[in-house]
């Protein structure tokens, strides 16, 4: 278990993938001997939230659902939004740059490189649509629900769309990565440029793991949290109205 007394450096030694999680919290490398508490104070971060995110990332059996639900929505949404930027701004372009490098193609045959790039670009486009919907529609909606829930002010959010609709249409963005891994590992011929392929595979494994964690927060934390607020709004305002009339 990671606690607030754990040193930042030990965190990264434990699992290097945490570097990108830290980045989402605005924490860069070079932390010397500082503990989590010290760094969180400096950066004015919610230590409890930080610890729950880190611990559930490290150990998938450790998932303090109830705890996570209790944090302010803005914290959760900020973390998810940062993660989206990491995917679209960094990880996806990195992978794409390697597989579409025509100077140093992964495979001997033109058609194999073409297939790989085509599959990946299709995936990228689907991912962009998925993330845009969340950033532009779903997350603002959830914040609106929270504002209304806490203050009773702002536009009534419950006019048709509900967080359950999001859950319904929320597709599995890791599935295609899983396929991509198998296509490279099993079905494409041995590569002309093995180093590039190893690199791509390592990045795909990391990305897939990170996305599982990400989707889990969306479906098991964000959705239930917003659903509870929707329910309470519906009971209070809408319920009263119908009683009054």
């Amino acid at each position, binding site marked *: 278990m990671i606690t607030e007394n754990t040193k930042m450096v030990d965190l990264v030694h434990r699992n290097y993938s945490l570097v990108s999680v830290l980045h989402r919290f605005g924490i860069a490398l070079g932390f010397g001997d500082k503990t989590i508490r010290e760094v969180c104070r400096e950066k004015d971060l919610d230590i409890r939230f930080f610890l729950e995110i880190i611990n559930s990332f490290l150990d998938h059996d450790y998932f303090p659902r109830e705890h996570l639900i209790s944090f302010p929505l803005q914290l959760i949404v900020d973390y998810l939004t940062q993660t989206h930027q990491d995917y679209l701004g960094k990880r996806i372009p990195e992978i794409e740059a390697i597989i579409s490098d025509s100077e140093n193609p992964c495979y001997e045959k033109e*058609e*194999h490189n073409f*297939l790989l790039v085509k*599959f990946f670009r*299709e*995936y990228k486009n689907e991912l962009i649509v998925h993330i845009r919907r969340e950033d532009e529609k779903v997350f603002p909606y959830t914040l609106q629900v929270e504002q209304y829930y806490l203050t009773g002010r702002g536009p009534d959010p419950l006019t048709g769309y509900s967080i359950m609709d999001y859950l319904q249409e929320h597709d599995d963005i890791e*599935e*295609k990565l*899983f*396929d*991509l891994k*198998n*296509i490279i590992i*099993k*079905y*494409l011929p041995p590569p002309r440029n093995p180093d590039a392929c190893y690199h791509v595979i390592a990045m795909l494994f990391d990305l897939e793991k990170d996305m599982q964690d990400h989707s889990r927060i969306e479906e098991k934390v964000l959705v239930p949290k917003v659903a509870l607020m929707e329910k309470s709004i519906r009971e209070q305002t809408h319920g009263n109205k119908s009683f009054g009339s």
Partner: protein
Amino acid sequence: MSQISFLILSGSYIFRTGLRSLLEEMEITQKVYLAEDIDKALKIQADILFLDTLQVSPASLPAAWTEESHKPVLVGLLPHTNGELSEHREIWDHFLDLSLTKSELLEEIRRIIRESGYQEHPAPREEKLSEREKTILRLVALGHTNRDIAEKLFISTHTVITHRKNITRKIGIKTVSGLTVYALLNHLVEMDEIQEQTG
């Protein structure tokens, strides 16, 4: 049956989960059930039972576990090498000494599986696609829906879905675009056919 099912009965969390992770490391198709008390255990049917000898007295074993026909294999878990088991030794088919090292434990479990008449290594998974599955995969790659395929082949949509599940299980690819790449690489369809469809 190539799948072996195990039941681990112990009140100790450490024993249960430790033994489970050991079993799961073995390359056998299996199902592992955990129970912390005998009431829970009785609701589960399994081939090989690992029972905590501190918790289960042989005299009190349920008839279902001791009657001759369809009797499961009973393995007594011994927490210490010198565990005293003077009474009813004959009830147990095997003992597992929990103070052994990891490699010794694995070896012991393999022996128990073998001596109980179960296959230690499952038959290799059949991964070749049948002709029917290839036909369906081809149609999927060409962009047909399950409904289209069912109509074309005069089978029910349900049957198409079953075939698709089997295809995914065999080749390890889940999505339509992944299946399309597979079909192209294996020349079940050609690039120009697909472009005709989409372009």
